[in-house]
């Protein structure tokens, strides 16, 4: 019995090592695409998930083999996962989230032959081409790191449009937006745009802008129950609020839940939440979208086509990379007048005559004090 079990163990070990050695070099044609998530999970109904769908769509579009994902469960995993794709000679590596920014820059610098796509990142380099520790961003990222593109969006623009919708459908003249944390620029971008858009419709409208957490932690982005509670509390205080915009990832899905429970209108964020979170579809009027999936897919296709452009891709409404989702079941709420306000605002933003917020040098919003 004993010697038999030892023999079996030995056999298993040999098999595993043999299999490890043999599988080390299997040539596969086409571009190999890998995706490294932010800390969390792949199915966050948000950045990770839609970047992943974008990677898949991009791979399909260029006829590459199906991409592979590596989920980071702790902070230290991000760099390790990127490196793992590098070692496996992947051609395109998508990294998701601002927290992966530094690791992506390091990897891009060390592996010039690999194309990196950093979602929600903006490489900030000093003149020497390394990440700028003082965030002065004097170096030309496009020239210094020609294999890295960071994708960012002008979230204030879809936020502005969402604000127009909110002000138009609000009967009480009191609306709200709940963000995960102000410590991540995308969140206040959305929310300031939202406030401005709403005021553009009705200058007297009251807009509550609230943040759930000081830090981009679990409470801010990964705690649906906490989001529901926060929203319920806000709604308990401001009983006349009748439109609620969520900018808080998974936590925000709980915010939408609270909107549904209170039978008021909710507005989704980042992706078309009517589709992505069916449980709250019935009260989701519209979503302020950035076309995550499409943009990641586009970048992959650019790699294939040789039109890859390094630096920061600041995507805006000009290229229709941000905007409002379809209204789906809520189309009846949108009067022609509202639709016109939206269309006009889109046109004005495209023309550059309308700024959704007080923009800073990096295309984000200056946060008023």
């Amino acid at each position, binding site marked *: 019995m004993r010697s038999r079990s030892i023999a079996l163990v030995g056999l298993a070990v040999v098999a595993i090592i043999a299999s490890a050695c043999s599988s080390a070099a299997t040539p596969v044609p086409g571009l190999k695409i890998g995706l490294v998530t932010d800390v*969390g*999970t*792949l*199915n*966050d109904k948000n950045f990770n*998930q839609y970047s992943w769908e974008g990677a898949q769509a991009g791979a399909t579009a260029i006829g590459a083999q199906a991409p592979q994902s590596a*989920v980071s*469960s702790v902070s230290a995993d991000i760099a390790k996962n990127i490196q793992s794709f590098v070692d496996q000679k992947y051609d395109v590596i998508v990294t998701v989230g601002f927290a992966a920014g530094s690791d992506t820059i390091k990897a891009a610098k060390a592996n010039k032959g690999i194309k990196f796509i950093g979602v929600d990142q903006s490489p900030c380099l000093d003149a020497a081409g390394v990440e700028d520790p003082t965030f002065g961003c004097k170096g030309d990222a496009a020239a210094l790191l020609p294999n890295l593109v960071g994708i960012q969006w002008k979230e204030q623009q879809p936020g502005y449009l969402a604000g127009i919708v909110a002000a138009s459908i609000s009967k009480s003249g009191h609306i709200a937006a709940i963000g995960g944390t102000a410590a991540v620029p995308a969140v206040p971008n959305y929310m300031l745009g939202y406030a401005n858009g709403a005021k553009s419709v009705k200058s007297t409208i009251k807009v*509550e802008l*609230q*943040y759930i*957490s*000081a830090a981009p932690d*679990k*409470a801010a982005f*990964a*705690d*649906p*129950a*906490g989001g*529901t*509670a*926060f929203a*319920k*509390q*806000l709604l*308990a*205080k401001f009983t006349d609020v009748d439109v609620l915009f969520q900018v808080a990832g*998974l936590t925000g*899905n*709980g915010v939408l*839940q609270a909107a549904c*429970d209170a039978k008021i209108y909710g507005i989704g964020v980042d992706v078309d939440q009517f589709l992505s*979170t*069916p*449980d*709250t579809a019935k009260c989701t009027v519209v979503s302020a979208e950035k076309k995550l999936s499409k943009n990641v897919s586009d970048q992959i296709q650019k790699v294939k086509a040789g039109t890859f452009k390094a630096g920061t891709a600041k995507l805006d409404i000009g290229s229709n990379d941000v905007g409002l989702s379809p209204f789906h079941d809520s189309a009846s709420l949108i009067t022609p007048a509202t639709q016109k306000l939206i269309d006009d605002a889109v046109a004005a933003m495209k023309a550059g005559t309308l700024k959704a917020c007080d923009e800073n040098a990096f295309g984000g919003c200056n946060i008023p004090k």
Partner: protein
Amino acid sequence: MLTGLFDIPVLGLVLQLLDFLLNVVTVNGPVILSLATPLALGAMCGVISERSGVVNIGIEGMMLASAFSAWLVASVAAQAFPAEPGFFFGVTPALLIGLAAALATGVAFSLVHAWLSISIRADQIISGTIINIVAFGVTAYLDLLLSRTSQPSGGKFLAFAPPQALLDLPVIGWLFRMVLAQGPITMAAIVIAVVFQVLLFRSRWGLRTRAVGEHPKAAETVGIDVIRLRYQNVLAGGLLAGLAGAWFTIDFGTTFQTGMTNGRGFIALAAMIFGRWHPIGAFGAALLFAASGALGTAIRTTPPPGQLGEILTSIPEQVFSALPYLVTIAVLAGVVGRSVAPAADGQPYEREATH
């Protein structure tokens, strides 16, 4: 008239603070109660288990696993048995099946804990740690795999809608709103806390439980089966943790997320200690902790005016998040009263007398 009092130095500030607290609690009563539910149920899981002498730090894991299975099973069942929400609490077959799954999961995990800590006589803290690690690992693993084939959830229980006339009553209308306009699990938690408190101190089971947790040998000498009673209690605790888990995915919310209990199982543990191992005490502590969170939120969203507002907003919001933990440490250390665990808590029991 009242506001005049607010101008008195120091005392006025205190009065303002009380006014603000009262305001926060009245306005947010229903939310606080709702948020306290998983904490209270988790804490009662701890109470029932530790009262019989078995330490349970695996509440977090049990809740997480139950939340997952409630969500998964309800969503599968919703496809198999599609139905319109029923009159009471929007009940559907799928939700009931999901609830049953949550309870079963809670029991299954607590069975592992019971076996390790009662039969194997392993260290009970290690056993609880195992529950936490395995529950997180299994749910996260499966959640990730399942999400590749996305499916809609099984929905959720709805809050009860009491007659408006009842809610509009002065003063007690608030109480009705707080207690009645809730989902079934929150309401159940209130009932369970009361029933459990009564049972623990007035029933045969309660008497035996307390005796076994304090002095198992004495219980054995009057013919009580210590091992069996501990099993019963730990499994019953599993039911409560299962119910707490179900709250996350089929009562308060509708979806599961990896690690979504987010440390609430440990706050539940804190509530149990703060509540001095009493069901009602634990419930009260859970309410207090939930209120502490609500207070933190209220200070940021709607700070009171004047000097009080300046003082309160100058406190970092993290202080309010950390409050339950700090309070628990203070209670354990005897700074704010003292809370002493049942004497035999954590000690495995060996049946045979050796002399």
